[in-house]
């Protein structure tokens, strides 16, 4: 029965200035779409004008095209889904020639998610994609949590020293700023963030999917051909918020692009308050292709209602719950108590 706190100073929606920064990058508002959940953007054109999102992260790109995993590749779980797509993609060359020109025309922020099969091929991919510098690529988002990569894949995402080395070499290979997408399977996220920041990453994205599995009790087989897959959707939101808050508290200056289960403007605001400078919407695009713009609108309306003029005013703003009065075995006398 707690009455909603009516904000002292609500704003009109048009008084809210959604523009924000991710490090040195300017965005018209904080809502982007996430890698692997937005393909190369073009498939969404029938549903809405893509200029209504602040930017997008492409499907993960590797130096050469990859066919992807056997099926089944996806299955639903409670308030989420598992996927094991296998990082299927057209390859860096085809991406640059066939996909990038169309994306660059849009004028929104283009983040190219990329990965390699081993350290050298990560570096090779960064070097190939460098051709997109000044041709529309704003950020290379380096995915270091590839459960589907056999060799070294685990260490890239969970051992800070390895992530540091990988980041350093990729940063040297390209003029495009690198944002590292961290793996939630790491035990110590702040250590990972620090390792990649010191290696020259301009920011971090988190979180990627969390490794999970599901079983078909009738066939006695895993529901994914690869046995394990990545869990995404609202189910993981509390874990994502915690990790973002941990990293932001440890490194308040490091820009964070937050994601994991966002489906509403209120979700997005939670991520900003936990410490994200901007957010990406992933799984929710499948059920509602135009959800990016509606989350933007919901965020604006909610910020207006709560009297928040700009995203920058609330990034990492949360404060601890105030302490209770000290316990005593006798209640204080009436006059003194309250």
């Amino acid at each position: 029965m707690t009455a909603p706190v009516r904000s002292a100073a609500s704003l009109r929606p048009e008084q809210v200035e959604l523009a924000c920064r991710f490090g040195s990058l300017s965005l018209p508002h904080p809502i982007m779409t996430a890698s692997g959940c937005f393909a190369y953007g073009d498939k969404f054109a029938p549903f809405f004008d893509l200029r209504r999102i602040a930017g997008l992260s492409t499907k993960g790109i590797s130096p050469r095209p990859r066919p992807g995993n056997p099926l089944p590749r996806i299955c639903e779980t409670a308030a989420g889904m598992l996927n094991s797509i296998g990082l299927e993609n057209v390859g860096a060359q085809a991406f640059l020639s066939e996909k990038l020109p169309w994306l660059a025309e849009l004028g929104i922020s283009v983040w190219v998610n990329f990965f390699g099969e081993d350290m050298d091929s990560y570096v090779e991919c960064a070097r190939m994609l460098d051709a997109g510098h000044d041709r529309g690529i704003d950020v290379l988002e380096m995915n270091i949590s590839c459960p589907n990569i056999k060799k070294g894949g685990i260490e890239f995402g969970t051992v800070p020293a390895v992530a540091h080395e990988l980041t350093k070499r990729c940063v040297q290979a390209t003029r495009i700023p690198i944002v590292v997408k961290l793996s939630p399977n790491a035990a110590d996220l702040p250590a990972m963030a620090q390792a990649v920041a010191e290696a020259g990453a301009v920011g971090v994205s988190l979180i990627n999917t969390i490794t999970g599995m599901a079983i078909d009790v009738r066939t006695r087989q895993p529901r994914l051909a690869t046995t394990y897959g990545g869990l995404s959707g609202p189910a993981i939101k509390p874990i994502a918020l915690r990790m973002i808050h941990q990293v932001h508290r440890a490194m308040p200056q490091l820009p964070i692009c937050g994601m994991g289960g966002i489906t509403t403007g209120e979700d997005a605001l939670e991520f900003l308050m936990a410490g994200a400078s901007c957010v990406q919407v992933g799984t929710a695009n499948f059920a509602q292709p135009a959800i990016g713009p509606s989350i933007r609108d919901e965020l604006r309306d909610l910020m207006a209602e709560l009297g928040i003029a700009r995203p920058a005013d609330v990034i990492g703003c949360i404060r601890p719950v105030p302490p209770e009065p000290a316990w005593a075995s006798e209640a204080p006398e009436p006059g003194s108590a309250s």
Partner: protein
Amino acid sequence: MVTPSPSQFRARVVDTRALVGGYFVLSMEGPAQPAPLAAVIPGQFVMLRGEWGRDPINPRAFSVLDSDGDGRFSVMLKAYGRGTARLCAMRSGEPVTVTGPLGQGTFVSPSAHGPTQLLVAGGVGLPPLHLQARRAAAAGLASRVELLYGGRDRDDLVLLTDFEGWGVRMHLATEDGSLGDRGFVTVPLQRRLQAAADAGEALQILACGPTPMLRAVRAMGLRHHVPTFLCLEEEMACGFGVCLGCAVPVYGDKPYEYCCTEGPVFEARRVRWS
């Protein structure tokens, strides 16, 4: 006070009545013999859940508004978040899972020669006080209780005709002044407390409503040295004392008591609020 053991049972929605102000009365019918809620005491509550899968996962607590001996009972609610929105959308015939009666700390009944009970209500805090007044009236003690009821505007004050019918004296307040005093329920409460102090009249305060209201009522009760009882709400996962989620900070033997088992009604002085 010994209350019957809670049970979990299935009920069906038999009526959904929209009041003004967005309030709903949801009437349900469960097993009749014995009817688990037959002997419900004002302040006791039930945990309700529809067949809505795995999200939201937990049931929601609702004070019992009324219950007869034949398995029919009702709650009053307002669409607030996910749980209440689903309950407000329910239609007759739909099944509900009910756990109850829950809560062992309840409102004390008025007595012919005891203090006058001021029933201070706000928002969805009305139900336990409504039941308290109904019971008082049934016992011929309608004059021993008075309703003090505050809301945003006149539509925020519901079921007034019930109190009228029972002959319960009412002191109303609305923030916009559209009915009763302009302001919070503390306006008529202050006046009533002052009048009693002047007349040397013995009072008791029983309150249920939004936490900010309860904080204000608690402070006034303490200031006027009037025994004050608050029906509290804490987030509840279980409602029967096992999750330990619904802790209420108290003074006394231990730092916390549990809203669902030791409450929901607590003596204001014992509540450790700033």
